[in-house]
C-alpha cells in the first residue's frame, strides 16, 4: 500500500555505502553514538535521507474561519458578507479575501471535511499539533518533532525544528513539544526575537577562543569516553559538535541577506518576514519550521478580523509558493495551514463566530500532495461534513505519507511499539500523488 509511493531510488543504499559506513562506525571513538537505539541516528540513516523532505507549517492560532477562507458559503444564512471567487482549478471556489491564492490553487490540496471533535483551545491545539490525544502515561511527539526525527541528520549543521510564535495569545497552548522523543528533537523556539537564543557568542570571548575551547573540550572528552559507552553520552557529544554549525546558521535568520525583490515579495509584515526566514531555513536543510500567526479567535467582529488577517495569509502563502516554485523546491517542501479548530457557521450577536471543530478546513501544498484537489464536503450552511470526513489522525497520516514516511512505522517506548498514527488510522489516498 504505502510502499508504492516510495520510489526505490530514493531509498536505495548501495552495498558499498553500507560497508563503508560500518567500517566508519568501528573506527569512531564514539561507537555508542551510532548504535541502534530507539532514537537511532546513524550515518546510514543520514544516507537514506539525502532526498530529504521539509515542512513549513503556517499555524493559524486561535482558530481561523473556514468560511472566510477555504470553504465559503456565499448566500447562505451562515455565509457572512464576503463573496466566493473562482480559482485556477475549475469548480473550486474560495473566499474573495484570497485573490492571490485563487490563482495558485492548482498546487494546493484543500481538506474541507475536518471533524476533530475538540473545541477547547488548549487541548485542541495539542491535538492538532500531534494528530492525536496524549495517553495517560505517554506524551506523543508533535508533527515537528516527528519530521525532525525522520528527516533530520544527526550531524546536521542546522537546527532540526524551528518554531516562530511571536504574539503572546495562545502561545502557551501550542508550544512545540517532542514528547517521548525527548530533548534531542525539542524545537528551537523563537518568541521575542527572530534570532534564536544563545546562537550568538557572548562579547567576552573571541571567535577563535570560542572555537578552540570547544576543541579543548573535545580533547578532554576523548580521554573520558575511552572504555565507556552510553547513548546519552553520545547525544551530549553530538550536541556540542553541532554548536558551531548552528552558530554559523545564524545568518539564515537574517533576511537582510535576501535581495530586496524577494523581501518585497513577502512583504513587510512580521508574518511575511518569518515566512521568508522559514524558506531560508528549509532551503538550508532544516526539516521543519512552524510560523505561528495569532490571534484568529474572533468571537466578536469576525468579519473585521478576517478582513484584516486573511489577505495577509493570502499574500504570504502565495509568496511562499511562488518562491519555492522558482527555486525548484516545491516538490520537496510542503506547506501546511492548520489551526486548532475552525469557526461556527452560526454568527453570534457580537457578529462573531465561536469555536467549531465539526466541519472545518486545512490545506496541504507541495511534496507528494495532489495539487488542485479538494477532499471533503460540508453541507450548504457549513454545519456538518456530508462526505469524505477526516479527523486529526488521518490528516497526519496523509501528511506523513505524502512526505514518504510510513504512518504505520513504529517508535519504541521501552518495549512498547508506538506507531506514528494510532492503529487503524489511514492516510487519504485520493490526495496523494
Amino acid at each position, binding site marked *: 500500500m504505502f510502499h508504492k509511493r516510495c520510489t526505490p531510488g530514493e531509498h536505495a543504499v548501495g552495498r558499498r555505502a553500507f560497508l563503508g559506513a560500518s567500517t566508519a562506525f568501528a573506527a569512531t571513538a564514539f561507537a555508542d553514538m551510532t548504535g541502534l537505539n530507539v532514537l537511532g541516528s546513524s550515518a546510514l540513516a543520514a544516507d537514506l535521507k539525502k532526498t530529504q523532505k521539509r515542512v513549513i507549517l503556517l499555524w493559524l492560532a486561535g482558530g481561523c474561519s473556514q468560511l472566510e477562507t477555504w470553504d465559503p458559503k456565499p448566500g447562505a444564512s451562515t455565509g457572512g458578507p464576503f463573496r466566493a471567487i473562482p480559482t485556477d482549478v475549475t469548480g473550486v471556489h474560495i473566499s474573495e479575501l484570497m485573490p492571490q491564492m485563487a490563482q495558485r490553487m492548482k498546487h494546493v490540496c484543500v481538506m474541507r471535511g475536518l471533524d476533530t471533535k475538540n473545541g477547547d483551545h488548549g487541548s485542541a491545539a495539542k491535538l492538532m499539533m500531534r494528530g492525536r490525544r496524549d495517553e495517560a*502515561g505517554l506524551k506523543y511527539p508533535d508533527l515537528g518533532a516527528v519530521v525532525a526525527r525522520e528527516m533530520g541528520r544527526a550531524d546536521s549543521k542546522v537546527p532540526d525544528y524551528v518554531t516562530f510564535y511571536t504574539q503572546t495569545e495562545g502561545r502557551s497552548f501550542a508550544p512545540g513539544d517532542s514528547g517521548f522523543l525527548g530533548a534531542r528533537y525539542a524545537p528551537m523556539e523563537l518568541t521575542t526575537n527572530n534570532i534564536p537564543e544563545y546562537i550568538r557568542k557572548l562579547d567576552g570571548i573571541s571567535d577563535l577562543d570560542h572555537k578552540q575551547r570547544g576543541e579543548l573540550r573535545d580533547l578532554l572528552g576523548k580521554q573520558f569516553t575511552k572504555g565507556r559507552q552510553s547513548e*546519552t553520552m553520545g*547525544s551530549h557529544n553530538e550536541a556540542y559538535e553541532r554548536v558551531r554549525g548552528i552558530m554559523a546558521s545564524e545568518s539564515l535568520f537574517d533576511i537582510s541577506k535576501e535581495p530586496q525583490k524577494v523581501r518585497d515579495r513577502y512583504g513587510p509584515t512580521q508574518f511575511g518576514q518569518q515566512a521568508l526566514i522559514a524558506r531560508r531555513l528549509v532551503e538550508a536543510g532544516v526539516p521543519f519550521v512552524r510560523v505561528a500567526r495569532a490571534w484568529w479567535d474572533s468571537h466578536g467582529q469576525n468579519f473585521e478580523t478576517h478582513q484584516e488577517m486573511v489577505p495577509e495569509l493570502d499574500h504570504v502563502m502565495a509568496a511562499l509558493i511562488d518562491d519555492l516554485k522558482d527555486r525548484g523546491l516545491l516538490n520537496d517542501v510542503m506547506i501546511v495551514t492548520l489551526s486548532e479548530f475552525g469557526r461556527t457557521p452560526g454568527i453570534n450577536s457580537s457578529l462573531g463566530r465561536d469555536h467549531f471543530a465539526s466541519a472545518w478546513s486545512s490545506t496541504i501544498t507541495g511534496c507528494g500532495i495532489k495539487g488542485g484537489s479538494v477532499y471533503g464536503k460540508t453541507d450548504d450552511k457549513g454545519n456538518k461534513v456530508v462526505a469524505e470526513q477526516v479527523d486529526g489522525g488521518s490528516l497526519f497520516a496523509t501528511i506523513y505519507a505524502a512526505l514518504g514516511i510510513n504512518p504505520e512505522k513504529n517508535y519504541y517506548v521501552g518495549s512498547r511499539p508506538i506507531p506514528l498514527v494510532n492503529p487503524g488510522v489511514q492516510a487519504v489516498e485520493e490526495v496523494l500523488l
Partner: protein
Amino acid sequence: MRLLRLVLSGLAVLTYAATGRTDDLPPAGRPIESVVDQFVDAKMAADKVTPAELADDATLVRRLTLDLVGRIPTVGETDAYLKSTDADKRTKLIDRLMASTAFDRHQAIQFDVMLNGELARQGRGSVRDYLTQAMKDRKPWDQIFRELMLPGDTDATKAAGEFLRARVTDADKMTNDVSVAFFGVNVSCAQCHDHPLVKDWKQDHFFGMKSFLARTYEAGNFVAERDAGVVKFKPIKGPEKTAKLMFLTGAVVETDTLRELSKDEQKKEKEAADKKKDKTATAAPPRPKFSAREKLVEVALQPKEAEFFSRSIVNRLWHRFFGSGLVNPLDQMHSENPASHPDLLKWLARDLAAHKYDLRRLVRGIVMSKAYSRDSRYSSESRPEDKYFAVAKLKPLTPQQLATSLKIATTDPKSFEGLKESEFEKRIEQAEQAGRGLASLIAQPTDNFQIGVAEALLFSNGDRVAKEYLTDGGGTLLAAAKAAKEPTDAVALLVRTSMARPAGDDEVKALTAYATERKDRAADAYKQILWALVTCPEFRFCH
C-alpha cells in the same frame, strides 16, 4: 562457641518459620549488600561475564556524594577520603552523607520526579515540600504512600494532597499515575482493550483501579471523596460492565457503594466543591464512611497483595543508584517481563517489607555493595549487557545535581574549608539555591535520555552560565587560579576542583600549554579551560 552456633541456627529456624519461607532465598537478616553481591556475582559467574574493576577512591567518593546528596564533593571532602587510611572510611562517608540534611532534600527531589514526572515542581505546598519533610522525619514508604493517598489536614500531610489534586480532573491519568508510581505497572494499555501482550492486564484491572480513585474530587484546598460512585466500561465484545473495586492482583473489595450518588449526596458534593472558591477553609471535608481510596491503601499493603508495592519501590531505588532497574522499563513489572535477578528482587522486597519499608536501610545496603562500586570503564570490546550490573552505567546528572555541582566546581575550594559541620551544610544549601535558576533550564533525564543542542548552546553562549558561574570575582575558583604562582598550579587547581579528582600529568601538560599560548590573557584562558572541563562528559555524568 558451640553454644553460639546453636543459638544462631535456632535463630535461623525461627526466621524461617516467621516468614513462612518456602523457597531457597537467603535467610532474612543478612546484610543487604552481601545478598546483592551474592546474586549479582552468581549471575555473572553462570554466564561467564567478567565484571569491571572496582572504581578508584576518587570516583567512588564523587559517585556516592552525587547519588546521596546531589552534588559533587568539595576538594576538602575528596582529599580527606583519599588520604584516610581508616578501613571503615567508606561506611563512615556513607553515614555522614546520609545524616546530612542535603540527603533529605536530594532524595525528596528524586521521589518527586519519580511520582510526578513533569508535574514535579518546588514551592510552598508542593509535593516536594511534603516529601522533604517526610525524608527528614524518616517516614517509611508505606506511610508516605498512605499520606499521599489519604492526605489529612495537619501541616505535615496537607501538602501531600497536591499529588491527587494535580490529577483530580482526569481520573484516567490519576489511575495510571498511581499504578505506575506505586506498583510499577502501566495499565493505560488496558483502558481501551485487554493488554495485547500481557495476559495479566485486562480492562477489569484498569477500571478496577479507577473505581478506587474516581470518587475523588476537589474541595477548596483539599481533595475530598464521594460516598459512592460507579465506573462503567464497554469491553470490545459484549455488554457494558460495571467495574468492581479490584486491585491489580485481582483482589476485590466488596461494597454496596457501587452506585450513582443520590440527589442529597450530589447536593452535598456541590456545596463542598463550591468551597473551591473559598481558599480560606482550614479543614478538609469529612471522609466518607466507606472510603474507596482508603480501601485501596489497605488492600495494596495487605501481605498477599503487597508484593506489587514492595517490588516496585525496590526496583525504583535500584534504578536510582544503578541507572537501570532489575526490571526495565520501571512501569512494566509483569509476568511477561521478568527481572534480571528475580530472586534478588524477591529477597529485597521481602526484606524491605519485613523492615517496615525503611527506605534508608535499603539505600544504605545498595550503596554498600560491591556491585555499586564498579568502574564505568570496561577494557575489552565485548562489554557485558546492562542486566549484569558488571560495569557502572553512566547516569546523566539531574538538573539540580548539575547546577549545584557547577556552583561547587566554580567556587574557590577554600571557602568550604575550616567550617563547622553546620556551617558547611549551610554553604552547600546556598549552592543548591543558587543553582535553581539554571536547573530550571535543563531537561530532566529519563530512560534513553538524549541531550539536545539547546543545552550545549546554553552552556556555550548563555550569559547565565558566564555571569553566574564562570566569573572571576572574589571567592571564585577562577580568582584562586589567577592568584596561583605558576600556570601548572592554576590548571591543576581547576581540574582538582571541577573534576573532584587529582589532575593527571598529561592533562596538566596539555592545559598548561593552552594557558601559556594565551599568556597575554591568562584570566580568559583559565575561564576557557574551566568551561571545557565543566562541559565535558566527565562532569555531565555520574560515572
